[in-house]
């Protein structure tokens, strides 16, 4: 499904953009759910609403953007072109959208049919994604650290999907005996660390030195971080399966690895050669601080310093998902989308001799204005703060949900503005004769 060595610039804009434009909708849906159900939703991680909103967020918002970005980045990062990206990307997108909706509906209604449908759609959608992107990664002409790391991250997604399918089968067919608690822990840890954190780390050592002009990450980290995360996850899984008391060690190792990664990223960002700051940079900083806090709180929880099952026990997950992963993903969108709009307009102009010389595409800061991105960052930061406070003072959870809704609405608005500008400019270029 891929042809080796191509330095071509990018698949059609519609391929990644459909994923990027859908993500804020799912984010907003998770906010609406929290607003609707209120503090009870986060009574524990097992409430139907908590499970539904976690998946709307992790699959519908985060994984959505990450999949779209991989379709986009594969040719640039590893020199492999995905053939028929419109077809495969389109199918993956539709399946991921419908599968996530069915899964959330399943959690909220407990209808076995919903879970059955979700299993089929998500297994097909993410399975197809793994085949298309995995084939590309296996055919990479040169084995760089980024290729290696992305393979590990895709492996992490595959394992997460496998556990997820097993758990969902348990919901869809009640007669199936499933060890729900340990399996959920495995599904959760592989999803958050093996897929989300591993992929973000791999992407960061490509993009942080590039876009911010910092020194490189140490080669040993680039080479081994993603692999280390997966090995520790396997160790954790085995020790949990045999009820071995030593499962604290791999968890502590994971926390330390992530703290090292985040600390190093923050340090590199203090040594950047560019002095111009932007929303992307603020998002990275916020994300890394949240990752360190999440890891520290997770260790504290493990050492019995937090009441298990309490609302506060959700703090590491909230910090990880909304504070770390969503921050980095949002920051990346503010770089990727304006650049892609510029790039594709540039190509359109190149194809039309009459437009060449008379039209210049709007630059990145004209595609999404920096003050608008900055305002959205403030909404995001305020929503995160209020959500964390809401874990202590539940009365704040509904206001927090409202702020999240506003933050996702503004993110969506900023992205849609970019897409509409693209359309308008395309029409202007086509009108040149």
């Amino acid at each position, binding site marked *: 499904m891929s042809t080796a060595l191509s330095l071509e610039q990018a698949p059609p804009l519609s391929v990644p953009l459909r994923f990027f434009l859908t993500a804020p909708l799912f984010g907003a849906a998770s906010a609406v759910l929290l607003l609707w159900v209120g503090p009870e939703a986060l009574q524990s991680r097992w409430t139907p609403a908590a499970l539904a909103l976690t998946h709307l967020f992790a699959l519908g918002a985060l994984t959505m953007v990450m999949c779209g970005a991989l379709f986009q980045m594969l040719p640039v990062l590893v020199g492999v072109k995905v053939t028929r990206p419109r077809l495969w990307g389109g199918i993956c997108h539709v399946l991921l959208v419908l599968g996530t909706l069915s899964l959330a509906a399943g959690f909220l209604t407990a209808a076995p049919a919903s879970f059955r449908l979700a299993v089929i759609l998500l297994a097909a959608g993410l399975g197809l994604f793994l085949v298309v992107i995995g084939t590309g990664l296996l055919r990479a002409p*040169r084995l*760089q650290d980024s290729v290696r790391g992305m393979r590990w991250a895709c492996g992490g997604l595959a394992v997460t999907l496998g556990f997820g399918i097993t758990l969902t089968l348990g919901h869809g067919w009640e007669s199936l005996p499933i060890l729900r608690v340990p399996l959920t822990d495995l599904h959760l840890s592989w999803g958050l660390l093996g897929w989300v954190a591993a992929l973000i780390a791999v992407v960061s050592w490509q993009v942080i030195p590039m876009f911010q002009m910092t020194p490189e990450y140490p080669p040993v980290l680039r080479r081994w971080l993603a692999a280390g995360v997966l090995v520790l996850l396997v160790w954790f899984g085995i020790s949990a399966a045999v009820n071995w008391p030593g499962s604290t060690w791999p968890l502590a190792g994971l926390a330390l690895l992530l703290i090292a990664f985040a600390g190093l990223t923050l340090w590199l960002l203090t040594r950047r050669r*560019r002095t111009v700051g932007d929303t992307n940079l603020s998002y990275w900083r916020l994300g890394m601080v949240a990752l360190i806090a999440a890891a520290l709180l997770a260790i504290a929880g493990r050492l019995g310093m937090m009441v298990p099952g309490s609302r506060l026990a959700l703090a590491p997950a909230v910090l990880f998902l909304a504070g770390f992963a969503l921050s980095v993903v949002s920051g990346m969108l503010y770089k990727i989308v304006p650049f892609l709009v510029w790039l594709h307009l540039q190509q359109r102009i190149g194809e039309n001799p009459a437009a060449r010389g008379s039209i210049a595409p709007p*630059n990145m*800061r004209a595609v999404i204005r920096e003050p608008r991105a900055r305002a959205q960052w403030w909404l995001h930061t305020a929503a995160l703060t209020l959500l964390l406070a809401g874990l202590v003072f539940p009365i704040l959870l509904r206001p927090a949900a409202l702020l999240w809704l506003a933050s996702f609405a503004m993110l969506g608005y900023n992205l849609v503005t970019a897409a509409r500008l693209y359309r308008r400019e395309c029409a202007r270029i086509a009108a040149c004769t």
Partner: protein
Amino acid sequence: MISEFMTGEHRHCDAGFAKAESAASEDDLEGARSAYAEFEAALLGHLAMEEQVLFPAFEAKTGMNGGPTAVMRMEHDQMRGLLGQMQRALSGGSLDDFLGLAETLNVLIQQHNMKEEHMLYPMTERALGGEATAIIERMRAL
């Protein structure tokens, strides 16, 4: 050897870029103009090295004319287009436009450099082998 030399060139251009961008962000129009002139000269020189020496040598050796080097040349054209716009923004004294264009140029250059450093230069090195020193000399002489 070619990889190291050309990657060093990229970092040299980055340094010039950062200087011009910093000056512009501090509203220092004169500083931005002089730093930009230096950066532009460095970048154009680098593009010339590739287009006049390195790519033709690679194409002659491998017979690959329409492949990777064609895409690289097209991206060079896109860079030159942005340079022209940046120059006009500076002449007109519009530092905001200049900064937006600079941001765009940086992303374009960085993703371009990554493809060169990770793929094209290693391929070139394999294809040209023992001629590397002579090629670097010819590029320096430009």
